[in-house]
Structures are given as C-alpha cells and as structure tokens.
C-alpha cells in the first residue's frame, strides 16, 4: 500500500522571499538618495534625505542574512529530498549556470549604461564625475573584477561546497551541539564570533562583490546559512527565540539606532578616503552593535514572518515566482532609470517611487518576454514554492 505523502506549503517562506526581493530593489533605489552614499553610489542624486539612510542601512543589516538563512534551509530541504548528487546537479543548473551566463552580460550592460549616462546626463553624480575624470587619464586604470550583485550566487556556491565538506568531516555533530545550546548562549556565540569577521571590513559591512571569496563574508553569511540549514531539521534552533521575539526586536532596533548614530557622515571606503572610517575601540563597539542588530533582526524577520506572512497570496506568490529573475536584472535597470531621473527636477520621494516601480515593472515584463515561456524558466523558476513533502513529520509540524 502506498503511503500518501502530505505536502506542506510553507507560505511564509514563499512570502518572505518575495518581500526580501522587494526590499532589495527598495534598498538599491534608496542609495541614490542617501546622504551617506552620495559620494559613492553611481546614481546619487543632488538631493538626498537621511530617511533613506535609515531605511537602507537598517534593512541592509538583515536582508541578505535572511536570504542566506533561507538558502541554507532550502539546501537542507533539497538535499534531504533528492540526495547529494541531484542536489549538486540542481545547484549547478540553478546557481552556477545563471552566474556564469549573466555575469558577463550584466557587466557589459552596466558598462554601457554608465557610458550612456556619462554622455547624456547633465547633473552627474560624484561617481560619474570620478569615472569621467579617470577616463581623461592617458592610461585609465581598469575597473576591478567584480561579481556585481551576483556575489550572492557566487558565495552560495562556496557555501554548498563547505556544506558538503563539513557534512563529510563532522556529520551532524555541530548541528546537534548547536541545538543543545541555550538561546542566549547561541545568540551570544553568534554575535561574538561575527565581530572579528565584520571588524575586518568597513562599516556598514560592504557587498563582497570582488571576484574572490571574501573570508569575512564566508564566515558572517556562513553562520546565517548554517542557521537556516539547521533550522530545517532542528526547528528549535530558531523557534526557541519566539517567546521573547518582542524583546529581541527592541534589542535589534536599539542596537541599530546606536550603530546608525555613530556612523560617519560619508561612507567612502577607507582605501579612497583614509581617516573617514571609525577605528580602534569605536570601530569595535560599532561592529558589536552591527553584529547584534544583524543577528537579532534576522531572527525576528523569520519569526514575525512565520506569524504574519503564513498565508497564501496570489500577488506574493507571483512575486516569489519572478523573484530570482528580478534579482538578476534589477540593478542595471534601476541604474538606467535613475540615471535618467538625475536631470529631472522632481521631488526625491517621487523619484524613488518612480525608480522602484519602473524597475519592478520592467523586470516583470522582461520575465514574461524572455523567461516564462523559454528554457530559461528552468533556471529561474523551477519549483519555486516551498513544499515539505517526504520530509520528517517533526519538520512538517514545527517549521
């Protein structure tokens, strides 16, 4: 007699993915109107407002960690459902191939967009001015090799390798050990272990978009990936924080507030403007606040999503479905739109709305034109809903 497998759809993870992707577009769009990023961001507008900084940097601390946590969860799910070999094939098809295919394409398109902006934009951002100045040099330096915003995929590949490695070397020992820790001990262990990694880089932690795996990012995001991986089989790892979620949220918000208050006025990387970044004890303290806010807000995002987003919504399901493609194409599109907005004498709030809405619209349109009916859908859509079938009953009940 066949045993009927019950599939449990985890709506809140579908919805969380959709919201996290939307937050990514809002984050990148907000940087154009951020006073702190004015000298650095390619599409920085002449006008800016601190409100964009508050939004951008608060979401920055937990948005990508949430993505990595979900990636860890899905990795464990996929591995349990299909086994190691099928898992590897799936990840090569859905992570490595899009990275290899789209990194060169996006690099060329972004270069073209910047070139177009240099030629046609009158009110250039400081970044564009800098590029223009560099291009007048007899031998302009080559731009550094970058994985752009696809650094997420790039680092994921390393996490898959490391997952295999740690599984081979240690089995489930580490997960079992982590599960036995008390919530506060686990939280403190995570925060303290993150501080050295985050201390290595500027504040707030940058995108590790260089062509090499960034050790700090492998450790920092790796902990979230591991937490998500463990969450699949040991739901307690995260759910144990649920009873005190309001307190964690308050702690996260306070940590971020203190962190934000101490941030320098301009976030120029240390190598371009020595002396602008905090150093010594101040940096250590700020890094501790950054790590605390990051860990606590990431946990809260998952906990609150489980409570508030665990419903089926056609709109969110749609956004979740297109999210991978939108993630891939949104940044060049956003740059292109925001470069054109630079010369318009509109209110920055309106520019922000137009920029994000047009980016989302064009991304979705391109999904239907280029992906949904072609073989690209195998890479970018797959089985996008989060189902737990053939999983352990305990997992189905808890997660």
């Amino acid at each position, binding site marked *: 007699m066949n045993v009927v497998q019950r599939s449990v759809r985890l709506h809140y993870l579908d919805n969380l993915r959709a919201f996290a992707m939307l937050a990514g577009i809002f984050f990148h769009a907000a940087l154009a109107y951020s006073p702190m990023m004015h000298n650095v961001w390619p599409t920085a507008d002449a006008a800016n407002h601190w409100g964009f900084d508050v939004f951008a940097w608060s979401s920055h601390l937990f948005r990508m960690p949430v993505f990595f946590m979900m990636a860890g969860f899905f990795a464990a799910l996929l591995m349990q459902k299909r086994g190691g070999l099928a898992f590897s094939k799936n990840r090569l098809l859905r992570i490595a191939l899009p990275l290899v295919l789209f990194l060169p394409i996006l690099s060329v398109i972004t270069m073209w967009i910047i070139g177009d902006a240099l030629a046609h934009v009158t009110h250039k951002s400081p970044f564009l001015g800098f590029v223009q100045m560099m291009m007048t040099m007899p031998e302009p330096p080559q731009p550094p*090799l970058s994985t752009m915003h696809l650094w997420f995929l790039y680092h994921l590949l390393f996490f898959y*390798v*490391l997952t295999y*490695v740690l599984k*081979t*070397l240690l089995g489930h020992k580490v997960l079992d050990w982590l599960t036995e820790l008390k919530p506060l001990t686990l939280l403190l262990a995570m925060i303290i272990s993150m501080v050295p990694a985050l201390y290595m880089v500027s504040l707030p932690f940058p995108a590790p978009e*260089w*062509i*090499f*795996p960034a050790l700090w990012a492998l450790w920092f995001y790796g902990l979230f990936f591991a937490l998500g991986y463990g969450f699949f089989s040991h739901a307690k790892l995260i759910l144990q924080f649920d009873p005190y979620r309001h307190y964690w949220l308050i702690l996260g918000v306070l940590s971020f507030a203190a962190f934000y208050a101490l941030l320098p006025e301009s976030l120029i990387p240390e190598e371009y403007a020595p002396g602008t970044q905090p150093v010594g004890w101040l940096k250590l303290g700020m890094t501790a606040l950054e790590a605390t806010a990051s860990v606590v807000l990431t946990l809260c995002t998952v906990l609150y999503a489980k409570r508030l987003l665990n419903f089926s919504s056609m709109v969110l399901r749609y956004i979740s479905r297109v999210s991978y493609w939108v993630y891939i194409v949104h940044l060049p599109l956003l740059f292109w739109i925001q470069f054109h907005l630079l010369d318009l004498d509109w209110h920055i709030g309106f520019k922000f709305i137009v920029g994000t809405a047009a980016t989302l619209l064009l991304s979705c349109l391109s999904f239907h034109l280029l992906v949904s009916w072609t073989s690209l859908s195998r890479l970018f859509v797959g089985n996008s809903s989060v189902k737990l079938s053939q999983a352990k009953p305990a997992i189905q009940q808890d997660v």
Partner: protein
Amino acid sequence: MTTALTNLQMIKRLVIKDWELAKKTIAAYMIAGIFTVGLMGMATTYTFNIGAILMITLLIVIGARSAIELVVNEKKDQTLPFILSLPVTVQDYALAKLLSNLVLYFVPWFILLVSMLVVIVSTPIYNGVIPLVVLVSMYILMAYCFYLGTALLSYSEGYTVAVMIVTNLLLNGFIIGLMWMPQINQTMEAASASWNPTSLLILAALIAISLAALLLTAYLQKRKTSFL
C-alpha cells in the same frame, strides 16, 4: 571485450574506493584551499605572501598524504593482499592506483594553480611573477610524480618519504635558482607575464620529466609480477 569491460568496471570500483577513503581528507583540503584563496584575494603584500606559502604547503601536503594514504598504507594495513584476492589483475590494480592518485592530486593542484593565477591577474600584484608561480607549481607536480612512482613501485614508506624529503629540499634550491636567473628575476616586477626562452625551456623540461616519471612507473608496474 567482455574481459576489458569487466576490468574497466573493476578499475572504476577501485578508483571509487580510493575516493571514498580520501574524501574526508580532500574535504579538509577544500576548506584550506578556500581559506588560502580568500587570504591571497585580500591582495595586500602581507596576505598574498602568507597565502602563497600556505598554497605551496597545501600542494605538497596533498601530494604527500595521497601517496602515503592511498598507496603505502594499503600494503601496511594488509588491504593490498585482500584486494588482490578479488577478481582483479595486478595490472588493473596498478592502473587504478595510478589513475586515482593522479585525479585526486591533479584536480586540486590545477584548481589551486588557476586560483593563484586569477589572484595575480586581478590584483595589483605584478603579473611578472606568473612564470615563477607556474614553474614552482610545476616543480611540485613533478616531485609528486616522483614520489607517487616510488610509492607505487616500492610500497615502501621509507623510500617514499626519502624521495619526498629530497624533492622538497630541492624545491628551495629550485626557487633560489630561479630567482638568481636574470631572465626570471628581471621580469618579476613587470606589468605582464614575460615568458622568455629560458622559462619556457624550464617549463618544458619539468613537464617532460613528469611525464617520463609517470610512463616509467606505468612500464615498470606492467613488468611487475608480484605486488606482495
């Protein structure tokens, strides 16, 4: 035909057996490799130099462990007589050993070398050091071929370790010798890699010696009548 296919199956199984035995060690090397590449990728002189030293150490350690763990220990642990009691000829066994060792060493060696070259090309580090890096890596591969050959032919820990010591001692001499050569050291701070006839000749010699060592090993293995 059937015999060849059967043998192929056995060889495949023996290679998989070696993979299963070595996979934990390889997993540990992967972590070390990622760490080393990440360290070199930080692109400061300090981290690059530490990374380069770690990389050379890693290349030597991977080779040494693979030769000892997969070849010498097989006889020491009495696994060899057991395997030869299976329906497998001594030649199949020898070929499987050669294949598995080469794959298990050559793949990490190649990945580490390419990573090192990518680091150099994409960072402000002078591309002129590329010939030196390639030649040193090639020397390490050649040394591996020597002690793999020794291990496969002798199954003796003593001889294998002796060859390891000699080749690794000679590595220092090899590096110093290269640094003294004007054709190598004068182009080390150049913006691009300069492959001149001297460096190309050394590279060709290293490749030829490595291949000769492997072919000689295969030939002598074939002539061997007893492995016990």
